[in-house]
């Protein structure tokens, strides 16, 4: 999927394997994500998505293989790699008692941004996420959709090249889910940020997306969604079913 021409890939996962003791969670996973692309990572429960996210966010140490973010290896140069990575976790990781702005400022501090830089970046992201008027509100007072937007603003504060969203639409009503998905696509287009969007909901995938299908710890398919659909059954639903019945895991 590295269709970025000469530009450096936003993400490269090479020969990634991971095991919990004797149980293998990921086996020889390889993929690339070009700049400015929206990639959907699909997989049934237990496919290894959470493990992959834990490795991408350095929660777990790499056992085998490597992950490169913007060309920097998470194994050899974790600092430049993490600088280029923004993450929205599946479960909310905001401080509910702190205000929107306090949450953002905390995150900027973790990335070592100066007070001046922080002011500029917080202002820009609050405006972009249409949250300026809510900056002083406690996160506890926000609805699910707004909380997600705060998390996206937070993930973009340090201007990453790659935005990782782990089942970010879970718990949202259908309208908010759709709005969030569209919002991320706009960001991807306008800011040339690469997005890795993990989900188990097929309707969040569009024909032109890069699609990665994970099943039983293996990447069983990768390519443009419409092409993959044609190759494996005609529509995305049947392709997904065909690829994720247990026999398909090669």
């Amino acid at each position, binding site marked *: 999927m590295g269709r970025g021409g000469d530009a450096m890939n936003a993400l490269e996962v090479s020969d990634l394997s991971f095991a919990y003791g004797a149980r293998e969670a990921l086996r020889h996973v390889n993929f690339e994500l070009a700049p400015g692309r929206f990639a959907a990572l699909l997989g049934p429960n237990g496919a290894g998505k959470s493990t992959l996210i834990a490795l991408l966010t350095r929660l777990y140490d790499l056992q085998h293989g490597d992950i490169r973010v913007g060309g920097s290896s998470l194994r050899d140069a974790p600092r430049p790699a*993490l600088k280029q990575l923004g993450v929205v976790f599946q479960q909310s990781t905001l401080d509910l*008692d702190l205000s929107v702005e306090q949450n953002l400022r*905390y995150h*900027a501090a*973790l990335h070592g941004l100066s007070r001046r830089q922080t002011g500029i970046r917080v202002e820009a992201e609050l405006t972009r996420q249409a949250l300026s008027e809510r900056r002083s509100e406690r996160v506890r007072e926000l609805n699910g959709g707004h909380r997600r937007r705060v998390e996206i603003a937070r993930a973009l504060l340090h201007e990453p090249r790659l935005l990782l969203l782990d089942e970010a639409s879970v718990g949202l009503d259908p309208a908010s889910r759709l709005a969030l998905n569209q919002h991320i696509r706009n960001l991807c287009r306008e800011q040339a940020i690469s997005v890795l969007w993990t989900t188990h909901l097929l309707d969040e995938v569009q024909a032109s997306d890069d699609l990665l299908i994970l099943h039983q710890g293996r990447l069983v398919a990768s390519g443009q969604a419409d092409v993959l659909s044609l190759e494996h059954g005609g529509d995305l639903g049947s392709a997904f079913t065909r690829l994720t019945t247990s026999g398909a895991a090669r």
Partner: protein
Amino acid sequence: MNAYWHCFSGIVLREWLRFVLQRTRFLSALVRPLLWLLVFAAGFRAALGIAIIEPYDTYIPYEVYIIPGLACMILLFNGMQGSLSMVYDREMGSMRVLLTSPLPRTFLLCSKLLATSLISLLQVYAFLAIAWLYGVQPPATGLLIALPALLLVALMLSALGLLLSNAIRQLENFAGVMNFVIFPLFFLSSALYPLWKMREASEWLYWLCALNPFTHAVELVRFALYERFNPLALAVCVGLTILFALLAVLTFNPQHAALRKSN
């Protein structure tokens, strides 16, 4: 270097904001030592007279004796509670955010330990202020000299908490920590009774107390509060803080928790 400073001050600011916003937690942390002071110590005064021992210059009522131990008790509870929640509790979410920072993990963990320790000091001084009003009044300079001693003790106990929660699966709930860590550390120390009293009761009990790191923490604070220097207690506390922090950082790995859970 600036990035480190921005990061550290951001972590301290967050702990401060949480402290300010969670007043009930702050108050409940004060209730425990105050109960000991106002109820236990008052009742015990009749039963236990304290002879002239260092660092005191005269006979002292029991309330005066027990204050350093109770100050350290606040640090002990906070240290254990804070570190446990860092690893296992709802804070796991915020821990994940902390770990996505590009700064080194060792720096992040140490900053977090230092930040929670600084906030614990506010609780200790609030307690000392109430004790002052109650009539236990160490010299004012002693209160100032005790500050670095209390910070060192807070760091030592937070690092111990983190180390224990990394190492021992059974400590995932706080009741286990109470029974197997907090109570033994607290009761087998000089917090409630001077060591010579313990020796009168039993020689082996005395040695257990004398070897307990918490005894040295209490004595460091007790001496500092009365403008005295206790080199042995300082050496033990500094040494153990470095050791605990080092081991805690080396053994900190969320992956271990995940691996244990999957087994």
